[in-house]
């Protein structure tokens, strides 16, 4: 029903829509690259999304795949190759025609090992070369050395480059084209007059003339400018500012529900960490980790820190990820008594209000987090009070980000850490570098020579099994089990899933904020500025 309503709104607005207007919003840093194959930062990703034309697009609302430059596609039974039927009559922004050669050229450039493209890394399932076969001007097949799970979704991140255009990456197939870049100031994108998409009435999209992206690091200034009407949207706004905005102008504040962002803490289980042996024993104990998890009041975290715009987290996948989320998993219930009972099983006991282990050591540890993140600092203070209720003394230490990364990934001089995790990709394959015991982002004990525990060996097996299976439902079965193990063993203590919060000016029409990035401008080609705004721009 909701989807029908959105479709109806888009259809009616497109009938009434007018061309023109300049959409304005902020980037929070300079884009590090304009090469769409080399994108790693958020600002560059914004430019890539708005200018790049892709074969297949993940619809940010429905999370389903939609044909773009490819009208159809077929994956081989073993998942090793994919064949695309391409759209005809499409041209790049400089007028160069689009064909299968461009897809072959893009894939060749993407998989070039000397480029070190992280977008390309996602396609590397095994050693060997990726072959692209041009079957016809509008038909192309890509063959991989081994099956790639979730293959078709990966093409959402691959803008097609022109093989023939002298403008190279500057020739694009997306709705906008880069017109001007003033470092530290702004990026101006102008309408691609050759863009292939049309609206219901046959009018060529996009409706907007231009998008001006002001480079502004300070979020408070961004909010102030939005309130003054100088900006049309804030794509991702923090809960405190959102709640203030919701009070002042409720119609401009959008809460799209849980996002892919979560906050979690973990204990250092690295056996080589310079910590006392008794502390390592605490951190390796499942009962200890579960007890800490049960002693934390997640509902309070959501209410106090996020003003209700967050949900208690249950596991590695957020409810925003509709297909992969394991709905049966529930967040560990807040129950300090249950937590103490679990600790007693491991010989912990309360003495004069202080929790002590079997050998009498008082349970005290430090939790590190990055300084400058107000929400995380507050969350640490709340966890501190919750743990004090079961006799655990926790010191909260805020460190600059570089020192923190050095501690958690190089010298392992820390006891527990509180950080956030943002998944950009819905597919669990993007989490291979977290869940494999040999992975560098297996934060509680990274780069294991062999799995340290039986459950980690089981997770390794399941992750490899899901990555080498093509059938989606079978993959889900494997990954569900991974989520269950993660919830039961609690190597990461998931705290909250933040909601996707954005601010949108009433002047902007056809906006339908989604849970996944880019939340507000995912349908940039259909966005329309209201008549009032057009008049103002004209002046």
């Amino acid at each position, binding site marked *: 029903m909701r989807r029908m309503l959105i479709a109806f709104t888009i259809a009616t607005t497109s009938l009434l829509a007018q061309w023109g207007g300049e959409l304005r919003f902020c980037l929070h840093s300079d884009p590090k690259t304009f090469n769409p194959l080399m994108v790693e930062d958020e600002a560059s990703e914004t430019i890539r999304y708005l200018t790049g034309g892709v074969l297949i697009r993940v619809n940010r609302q429905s999370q389903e795949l939609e044909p773009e430059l490819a009208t159809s596609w077929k994956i081989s039974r073993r998942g090793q190759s994919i064949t695309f039927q391409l759209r005809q009559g499409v041209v790049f922004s400089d007028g160069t025609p689009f064909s299968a050669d461009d897809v072959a050229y893009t894939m060749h450039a993407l998989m070039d090992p000397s480029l070190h493209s992280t977008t390309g890394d996602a396609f590397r399932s095994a050693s060997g070369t990726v072959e692209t076969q041009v079957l016809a001007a509008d038909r192309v097949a890509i063959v991989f050395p081994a099956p790639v799970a979730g293959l078709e979704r990966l093409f959402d991140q691959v803008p097609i480059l022109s093989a023939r255009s002298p403008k190279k990456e500057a020739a694009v197939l997306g709705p906008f084209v880069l017109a001007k870049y003033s470092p530290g100031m702004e990026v101006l994108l102008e309408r691609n007059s050759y863009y292939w998409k049309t609206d219901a009435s046959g009018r060529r999209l996009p409706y907007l003339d231009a998008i001006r992206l002001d480079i502004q690091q300070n979020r408070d200034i961004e909010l102030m400018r939005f309130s003054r009407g100088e900006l049309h949207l804030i794509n991702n706004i923090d809960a405190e500012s959102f709640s203030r905005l919701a009070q002042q102008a409720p119609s401009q504040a959008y809460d799209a529900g849980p996002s892919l962002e979560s906050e979690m803490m973990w204990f250092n289980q690295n056996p080589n960490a310079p910590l006392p042996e008794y502390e390592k024993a605490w951190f390796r104990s499942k009962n200890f980790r579960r007890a800490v998890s049960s002693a934390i009041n997640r509902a309070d975290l959501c209410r*106090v820190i996020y003003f209700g715009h967050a949900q208690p987290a249950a596991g590695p996948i957020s409810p925003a990820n509709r297909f992969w989320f394991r709905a049966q998993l529930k967040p560990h219930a807040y129950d300090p008594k249950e937590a103490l009972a679990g600790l007693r099983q491991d010989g912990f006991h309360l003495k004069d209000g202080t929790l002590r282990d079997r050998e009498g050591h008082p349970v005290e*540890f430090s939790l590190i987090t990055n300084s400058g993140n107000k929400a995380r600092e507050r969350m640490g203070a709340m966890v501190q009070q919750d743990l004090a209720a079961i006799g655990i003394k926790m010191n*909260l*230490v805020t*460190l*600059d980000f570089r020192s923190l990364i050095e501690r958690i990934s190089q010298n392992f*001089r820390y006891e527990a850490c509180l950080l956030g995790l943002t998944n950009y990709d819905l597919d669990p394959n993007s989490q291979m570098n977290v869940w494999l015991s040999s992975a560098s982002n297996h934060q509680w004990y990274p780069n294991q020579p062999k799995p340290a525990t039986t459950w980690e060996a089981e997770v390794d097996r399941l992750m490899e099994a899901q990555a080498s299976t093509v059938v989606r439902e079978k993959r889900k079965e494997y990954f569900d089990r991974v989520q269950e193990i993660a919830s039961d063993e609690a190597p990461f203590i998931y705290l909250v899933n933040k909601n996707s919060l954005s601010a949108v000016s009433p002047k902007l029409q056809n906006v339908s904020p989604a849970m996944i990035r880019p939340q507000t401008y995912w349908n940039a080609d259909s966005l329309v500025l209201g008549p009032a705004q057009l008049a103002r721009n004209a002046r």
Partner: protein
Amino acid sequence: MKRARNVAIVVLAAVFAISLLANFFAPAPYAMQFRDFISSPASRRFWLGTDELGRDRWSRLLYGTRISLLLAPAAALLSTTMAVLIGGVAGYLGGWWDRVVLRVIDIFLSIPWLFLFLIVRALLPLNTSPLTSVIVTFTVMGLLGWASPARIIRAGAQSLRGSDLVLHARACGCPGTRLLLVHIVPNLKPVVFAQFWISIPTFILGEASLGLIGLGVAEPLPSWGNLLRELANPRAVMSNPWILAPLVVLVVVVSCFQLLLPQKEFAS
């Protein structure tokens, strides 16, 4: 003027006494979170309202005053003492000693010392208690804060060195050490006092800024510095004017310290 100084003494004594007896006057522990009363306005129960974690602002102000009133003057004393020793002696001796000290001061002032705080934070054990951490922070600030006052004190000592008073003493055969301790240093008192009082709010605000890199007073311990961080949000100030209380206390305390400056000697 005397009346104003008396009032200042009474106010300072009262602030010191109340903060030292915070355990007695504070209605709640400074870290206690009343989670059903987050960001509450001022009320009979919470005189200055509660912060974003539901902690009683009045209690936190009392405990924070204790920390800041003890540690900021201690850091100011450390830096001023160093400034007198280095700047005073350089100004009195003059010559190559003065030139070397001046260059050192210039170099010292031109170096961004933030990296030193980062190193200190990185070297401190993580399980350092919040109190130890704040003492280390103020000590480092005190050790780094001498250069600016030293330059001013040096200028004062230099002008005294050529004054009639010192020339007369020297003509009477007064030895160098006595000249320094009896005739120069006492006459530098107004400058030294001024530098000392000026340093106190600088250290308090410096601690607030260091909080942003995790070197300020660690949670949940309050200080004027981290209480003042709430003022960074102008909208919150407009809607909750009582969050200005730490600023008001800071201004009152610093003004009282200023009133206690030896005015006559200043005039001379």
